[in-house]
């Protein structure tokens, strides 16, 4: 079978729809037609492909051309010069998307000019499956080893505040929305009236907040940091009144007002393990709930998941930082969220909120070839990311890095990307050397200094 798709509009779903057509009518493949010696081809071959937005394809292959996914399916035509990574027995997922991150890129702002593509934290985030992350108002790919092609977009997640703790700020914001709506109404009326009166003056947008205008027009979505049910309810009502879709960061008591948030078309960015206790002075429900993500999702709120700490922590305490994004998703499942929705919450949902869903967040033809290969269920605690692929190139290989190569080393016979699976070819010697690093380090018996005494535990 050979799945073939139109590259411009192609998606996996489209591929499935047009499959009979492609098989029956189009004899020469796109790949063959488009072959050019300068093209870079890369194949993840024979893995169980969890596409995210489409089906799970067992033992399928993903072919990418110049960093973009060209085809997904079985018995693909593979150009001779293609680099092939045999991942039979492994799972292939879309690279994870971190809606928030700190310290991954070695720079602070202006990533294009400050990125350190050899940053240790970038490698560690890749080891956790993260291939795209927001840093400040920018979104970038963890394209380790490269200084270009990292930044996807900027100016994302513009923040607004609407809280009872700042009543005058609330009034001001509401007035801005009212002004924006009045302007749009006047403009619409002018468009009608000018047909009969050509000299009618266009209404002025003076004093109208241009970003608020974009929210009301549905061109952008503002993000609010809010967690109490009162603030959440206020935001939901504001959004319904002015017709914009809010993104809510925190959203701890969202489960109590989930229906209102659903009606407002809200999206929530949630830490499943967030804890806040309800005020003992109130009889009504309150505080955090492990079921928050599940209840919100049921109410139609799209859920994005982020751990409590968006940085990489090597202090020894584990499970709560960006290296354990999948653990946080696991806790959302504990609260009743489906595994599919939990995986969406760390892939396609954050990609949508960041406006990069056309590039990353799922395995679809035409999207960036950003994928991770794991040795098991991505949400299982024992699973490790074996390879991370960004823009059709292996940027992380567990066996080739020092950090985790010693933990359950990959069985011999697993092929490294440098190896072609052409019949008769033998393993590259360099690869064998790499796999020798898998032994745990010997006891060195060196004297420990006092630097480590600083345990801050009570």
């Amino acid at each position, binding site marked *: 079978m050979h799945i073939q798709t139109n590259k411009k509009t192609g998606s996996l779903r489209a591929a499935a729809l047009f499959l009979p057509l492609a098989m029956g009518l189009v004899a020469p493949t796109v790949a063959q037609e488009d072959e050019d010696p300068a093209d870079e081809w890369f194949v993840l071959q024979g893995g169980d492909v969890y596409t995210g937005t489409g089906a799970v394809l067992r033992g399928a292959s993903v072919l990418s051309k110049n960093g973009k996914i060209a085809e997904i399916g079985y018995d693909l035509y593979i150009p001779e010069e293609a680099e092939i990574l045999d991942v039979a027995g492994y799972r292939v997922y879309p690279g994870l998307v971190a809606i928030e991150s700190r310290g991954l890129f070695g720079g602070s702002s202006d990533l294009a000019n400050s990125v350190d593509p050899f940053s240790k934290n970038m490698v560690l985030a890749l080891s956790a499956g993260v291939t795209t992350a927001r840093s400040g108002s920018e979104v970038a790919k963890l394209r380790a080893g490269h200084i270009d092609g990292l930044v996807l977009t900027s100016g994302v997640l513009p923040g607004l505040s609407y809280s009872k703790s700042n009543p005058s700020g609330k009034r001001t914001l509401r007035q801005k929305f009212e002004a924006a709506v009045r302007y749009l109404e006047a403009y619409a009326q002018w468009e009608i009236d000018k047909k009969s009166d050509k000299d009618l003056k266009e209404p002025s947008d003076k004093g109208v907040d241009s970003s608020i205008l974009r929210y009301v027009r549905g061109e952008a979505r503002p993000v609010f940091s809010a967690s109490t049910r009162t603030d959440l309810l206020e935001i939901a009502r504001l959004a319904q009144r002015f017709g914009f879709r809010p993104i809510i960061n925190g959203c701890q008591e969202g489960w109590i007002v989930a229906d209102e948030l659903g009606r407002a078309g809200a999206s929530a960015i949630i830490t499943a393990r967030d*804890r806040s206790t309800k005020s*003992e002075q109130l009889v009504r429900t309150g505080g955090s709930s*492990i079921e928050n993500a599940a209840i919100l999702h049921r109410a139609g709120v799209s859920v994005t998941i982020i751990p409590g700490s968006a940085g990489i922590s090597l202090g020894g305490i584990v499970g709560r930082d960006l290296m354990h994004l999948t653990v946080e998703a696991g806790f959302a499942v504990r609260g009743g969220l489906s595994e599919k929705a939990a995986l969406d919450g760390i892939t396609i949902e954050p990609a949508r909120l960041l406006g990069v869903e056309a590039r990353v967040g799922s395995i679809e033809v035409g999207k960036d070839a950003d994928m991770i290969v794991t040795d098991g269920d991505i949400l299982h605690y024992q699973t490790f990311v074996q390879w991370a692929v960004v823009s059709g190139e292996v940027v992380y290989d567990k066996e080739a890095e020092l950090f985790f190569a010693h933990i359950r080393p990959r069985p011999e016979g697993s092929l490294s990307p440098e190896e072609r699976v052409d019949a008769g070819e033998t393993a590259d010697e360099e690869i064998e050397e790499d796999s020798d690093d898998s032994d745990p380090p010997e006891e060195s018996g060196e004297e*420990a200094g006092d630097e480590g005494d600083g345990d801050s535990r009570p």
Partner: protein
Amino acid sequence: MTLSSTRTVACLALCLLGLGSLSSALDEEKGRAILARKILIAARPGPSVLDNGVILISGARIEAVGPRSEIEIPEGYEVLDVGNHWVGPGFLDLHNHTASDLRSLNDTVYLTNPGLRAVAGALPDNPAMRVALAAGVTSVLTIPGSGSNMGGQGVLQRTGFRGFEANLIRNPGSLKLAQAGNPERSQPWTPRRSFMNYNTRSTFRRGVAYAKRWSAFEAGTGEKPERDLQFDIFRSLYKGEAQVSTHTQIHQVVLMTVTMVAIEFGLPVFIDHGTFDGFRAAPQAQAAGVNAILGPRAIQPPIAGFIDTDGAILGVAASYQERGHTTIGFNTDAPVIPEEELPLQAAMGVHYGFDNSNMDAIRGLTIVPAMTVGLQADQGSIEVGKYADLIVTTGDPIDPRSSVEWVIQHGRTVYDTSKERRRW
């Protein structure tokens, strides 16, 4: 909260307690049979898993456990089939602070304070512990902080019942020893290891001498010694009725836990933390029978000039295991890690290389800590004669995705998601 509302709540709680104990008394008379697809026995040594099994509960204890084909359910027993859910023993965390008033954590009177008691601030029935219960943590060792080399005595408590008395397992539960890596910072001067070892050793010497005088008196071979509250804990330690729970970390310090406390003074002791490169002392600890209750740090990255790992990020539990240690458990040091994340500590141990092919991770939350504090006759595994402290989970209990549906303590239902909102 106002005083009047406190009274109302207290009154309400009492009323509820009355009703609760009535219904559970009925349950106990009837006896219960729990049927499950997977039962985690977690005995050590012994079997780990029983498929399609039955547990019979009579009163507070387990009456029988075995395959469905072999166990006959007595007439009149309430039969509870939990379907595809798993049943396992409740968890025991040997390093907890949150079942107490955290403000008295580091009370300090002398350079060593074996007379101070965590029980003075014990608060087992609090919101944090109610969440812990919903994570399957049915008992905890609540200990003082590590502000001085000896912070005081810990207390072993349950989490399932209302009020202190119902939850008390044992007091003293342990003597908290902090060998290094915290006491330094609580003094206006900065004591270092030679001082701290001297300080610790001299207190142990006096304490053991005190305990020996009492033993001689009890055996009729000595005069009645004068009671000294500062040293009474050593009578429990000397008789093996309590253990030394040791804040210890870094190779040399863990080595000193083994050589000083276990070998030199012959007192029951366990490693509590054991982090940084403490794993280098794992063979000596194993040989001396010193159990390793590890955490809350789960990994050790290389630290330039201190711990050389050739770039590897080591799993702490895996590193003890690789060096032959066979009695490994996990802790949280709650609130450092919230108590409800105790099972995650085991899961992270496995992630970072701890071999779980014999289900040692679940043992590290149950039978290993129970053995470590001498409670193995009463709890820590699903075996006949032990308390029915059971958790029913939707799957592998250390998987964050599995939720705890039902908790039974001493044969009584203490948490049931079919009757109340999920707490965790």
